[in-house]
């Protein structure tokens, strides 16, 4: 891999001392400062960093696709030609023909009212002036090259008829149609499930070899970067802080920010009892008011007085590496870990009390698709949750994992009373919860709260933080009126925010801060059970670990039980006492965390586990690719729900009879394959 860099040819794009400054109505934001980088043909260059570090802005500068009034300094040279001086029409030609982009949200990038063929062919007919027939052939060929089996059908489809992974493949095919010299991919897999992500990454790697394209790959996921890139640039607050080959970077980072990023990722080997997750204190400084000296100094555990006095330059340290740290030779993973161990010595030793707080038995939640006043007949039910049972112990944590659309969120919302129950029972501390949230008594409401997924919609944009926290305090009668203000301060403190946040509106908070306020709001009523519906999945890694640690600490301090939903198995493993793996409305495996994460696994859990990118480029995992996408919950497969995609399917029995529950010491696997057979097959393979 390291040799690839040598053999890779000519530079495709070079940025020299690039500076980009946004001029807004109220502020001027120097989004990128003094950035220099070069990408060669056949090379995947990774750009990492938390959000707000200027990664996307830098990429947009490659094609000068920036809002009007943006100030640009320095130089961008594309195939030997400076693009900062190009006219608009030259730029348009360049954007269409020589540079292509793939964005994070494939559905937003595709036109919903045109079928795939017209969108793809349009590119060819506009730029290359070829006949519709020839365009059709080229499109089909390109779709096949991005491993779409049924290209003809896909070309006739509309974007909404394709799965997320399919859409992303179509976008990549569109991007490659004109054989661009540079492909810019901006978090192309962030919105995808792990199984689909893995397939897309493989595809990108194949395409790089095949077309010899230079690829600029932006991601905040270091696992993805490790798997795909040859060289990596780490950006922080608009500056490049380190650049190295991927092996060097992961083996011996030479900037504390890189090291800290690497230590933020919960990986499968760790759980909360033995290993507290490191998080970078503080957050990216607002670009409109940067600290003096090294921009990372305020958050840097290795910072020295000189760091705030002198502004470090990006210096060459040999072997093609560059770093902006003045004390790069002191960046040592071992010393760093020792420092962490001492600083985060808080060990959580929760004795598992086996008292049941929440009991769910044979829960079914079906939805009737909307039908108008005059529509004839009823449409078939959507079986979002179809007969699941589990318990949550007092102060315990149940993690629920599974691909999107498997019914995780529906389960949480139903327990919260936001969805009606079709059948089954939910018992909470002795009370029957079979009633919608509007009918529940206050005493129950205050004990059962929820933290939601989307930081942008979890807070009312028109309310200040103080107003948001005051309502639950007042409504749930937690404290007397005179103590409300004090209680708000305490809540803010509990989530590591200070009183200056009281008068802020959500627009003035970062994603992580919004989620902290939402967590404070959930804990305001002194709950007994907090339902967390993917609370961290849309946050940056560094913020993710902060929020995880925060949730853990609050759980301990307030002695609450949690239901934690995530599609990230590493996170689930780290947090949970018990884990349930869901697939298409049913639970396929349930047990203690250590049981679920060691063989035997349900074949579906096995596939999920194998799809997790490990942030270490030297490890090549044996990956299991699941074929196809999740079937429709309107008409789920008979027998075992997973049989249509199961790599270990035994035969007709899987299609006909629902799988039996095989139990050993509280660990339940719903599968037709006998326990011992699963175990031996999976241990020998691993």
């Amino acid at each position: 891999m390291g040799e690839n860099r040598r053999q890779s040819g000519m530079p495709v794009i070079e940025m020299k001392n690039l500076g980009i400054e946004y001029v807004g109505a109220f502020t001027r934001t120097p989004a990128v400062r003094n950035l220099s980088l070069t990408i060669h043909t056949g090379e995947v260059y990774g750009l990492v960093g938390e959000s707000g570090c200027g990664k996307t802005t830098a990429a947009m500068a490659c094609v000068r696709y920036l809002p009007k009034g943006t100030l640009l300094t320095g130089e961008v040279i594309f195939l030997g030609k400076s693009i900062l001086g190009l006219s608009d029409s030259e730029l348009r030609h360049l954007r269409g023909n020589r540079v292509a982009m793939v964005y994070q949200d494939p559905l937003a990038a595709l036109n919903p009212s045109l079928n795939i063929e017209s969108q793809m062919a349009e590119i060819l007919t506009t730029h290359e002036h070829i006949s519709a027939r020839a365009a059709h052939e080229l499109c089909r060929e390109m779709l096949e090259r991005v491993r779409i089996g049924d290209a003809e059908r896909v070309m006739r489809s509309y974007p909404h008829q394709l799965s997320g992974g399919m859409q992303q493949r179509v976008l990549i095919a569109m991007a490659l149609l004109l054989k661009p010299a540079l492909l810019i991919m901006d978090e192309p897999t962030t919105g995808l499930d792990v199984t689909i992500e893995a397939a897309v990454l493989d595809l990108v790697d194949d395409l790089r070899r095949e077309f010899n394209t230079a690829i600029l790959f932006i991601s905040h996921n270091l696992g993805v970067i490790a798997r795909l890139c040859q060289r990596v640039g780490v950006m922080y607050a608009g500056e490049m802080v380190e650049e190295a080959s991927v092996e060097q970077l992961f083996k011996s980072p030479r900037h504390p920010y890189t090291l800290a990023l690497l230590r933020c990722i919960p990986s499968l080997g760790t759980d909360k009892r033995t290993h507290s997750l490191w998080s970078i204190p503080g957050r990216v400084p607002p670009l409109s008011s940067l600290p003096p000296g090294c921009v990372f100094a305020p958050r840097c555990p290795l910072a020295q007085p000189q760091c705030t006095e002198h502004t470090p330059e990006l210096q060459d340290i040999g072997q093609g590496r560059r770093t902006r740290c003045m004390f790069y030779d002191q960046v040592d993973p071992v010393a760093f870990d020792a420092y962490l161990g001492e600083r985060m010595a808080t060990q959580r030793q929760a004795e598992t009390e086996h008292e049941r707080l929440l009991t769910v038995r044979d829960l079914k939640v079906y939805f009737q698709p909307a039908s108008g006043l005059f529509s004839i007949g009823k449409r078939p039910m959507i079986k979002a949750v179809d007969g699941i049972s589990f318990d949550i112990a007092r102060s315990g944590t149940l993690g629920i994992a599974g691909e999107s659309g498997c019914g995780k969120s529906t389960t949480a919302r139903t327990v919260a009373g936001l969805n009606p129950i079709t059948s089954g029972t939910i018992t909470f501390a002795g009370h029957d919860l079979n009633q919608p949230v509007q009918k529940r008594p206050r005493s129950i409401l205050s004990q059962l709260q929820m933290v939601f997924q989307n930081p942008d919609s979890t807070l009312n944009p028109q309310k200040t933080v103080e107003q948001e926290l005051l309502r639950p305090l007042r409504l749930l009668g937690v404290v007397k009126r005179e103590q409300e203000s004090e209680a708000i301060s305490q809540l803010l403190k509990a989530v590591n925010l200070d009183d200056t946040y009281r008068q802020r509106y959500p627009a003035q908070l970062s994603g992580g801060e919004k989620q902290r306020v939402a967590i404070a709001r959930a804990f305001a009523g002194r709950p007994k059970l907090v339902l967390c519906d993917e609370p961290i999945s849309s946050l940056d890694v560094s913020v993710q670990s902060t929020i995880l640690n925060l949730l853990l600490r609050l759980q301990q301090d307030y002695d609450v039980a949690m239901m934690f939903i995530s599609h990230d198995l590493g996170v689930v493993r780290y947090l949970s006492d018990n884990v349930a793996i869901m697939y298409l409305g049913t639970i396929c495996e349930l047990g203690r965390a250590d049981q679920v994460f060691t063989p035997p696994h349900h074949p579906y859990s096995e596939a999920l586990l194998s799809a997790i990118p490990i942030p270490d480029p030297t490890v090549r995992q044996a990956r299991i690719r699941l074929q196809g996408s999740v079937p429709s919950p309107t008409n789920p497969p008979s027998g075992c729900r997973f049989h249509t995609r199961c790599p270990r399917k035994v035969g007709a029995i899987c299609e006909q009879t629902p799988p039996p529950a095989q139990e050993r010491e509280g660990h339940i696997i719903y599968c037709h394959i006998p326990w011992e057979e699963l175990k031996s097959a999976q241990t020998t393979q691993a």
Partner: protein
Amino acid sequence: MESVSIPARTLVRPAPRPMSLTRQRIILTLRNPMAVLGIVIIVIWIVLAIIGPRLRPYSYTDFAAKPWTSPSAAFWLGTDALGRDLFVRVTMGARLALVVPTTAVALGVLLGSIVGLATGYYGGLLDDIVMRLIDVMMAFPMLMLYLLIIYAIGPSAINVIIAVAIGSTPGIARLVRSLTIDLRTREFVAAAQLRGESGWYIMLREILPNISGPLLVDACVRVAYAIFATGSLGFLGLGVPPPFPDWGQMIGEGRGWVLMVPWAPLWPLIAISSVVIAFNLLADGLRRAGWVD
């Protein structure tokens, strides 16, 4: 080796202090030339409506001079067929033209918001029934609807307000309903339900503030339209009964002699157009200042 870094940090200003969304929008509105032009025109008309009739020694019913006197120093805009001062009548008419449509639209916003919030938030059978009724109302040509109402309850300023308010309710209700349907699925609404807020609190305190922007822009367009509508009713003789100077009615009266005394219908025509344009400019300016998103 490294070239001099760009002096980005010297350009930096201190971070802005927390500002509510509404305040930001107001500042942006006041920086928008279209919105400011609209506001200026509307303010000029408000001032004229208040002091205009007092600037001249005649009332709007006085026969001040010979019919059809040309504009002069004594009669700034001339006189009409009965010799009444047109300046006094146009500025007096402005009181009506400003108060009636805005009151009517305000009423319509009130009614429409109640209907839209309730149907959008609760959905179900209520939503189905009310929305079909609204479809029926919207199927009528608007002017026909006004005529029907005015014929039924008789012409007067109050009745024009009632007619225009009823006429604008369905459209506003639909707008509010669709915005509500979008907002009620937001997580902050679920959070409010989880802490036991009543339906009213959620509709009025969680949802309504978030739709007030689009509602305001829509209301401005509707006021402009309502000025036209009241003008049309006046023109047809179904507005405020004479002798009160209704602009539409003045155009109707002056229409017959337009070749001999062009100014008689011209002044009220200019008046109506300028106010309508002003409200449309304001609506456009508000939209660009971010009131809609």
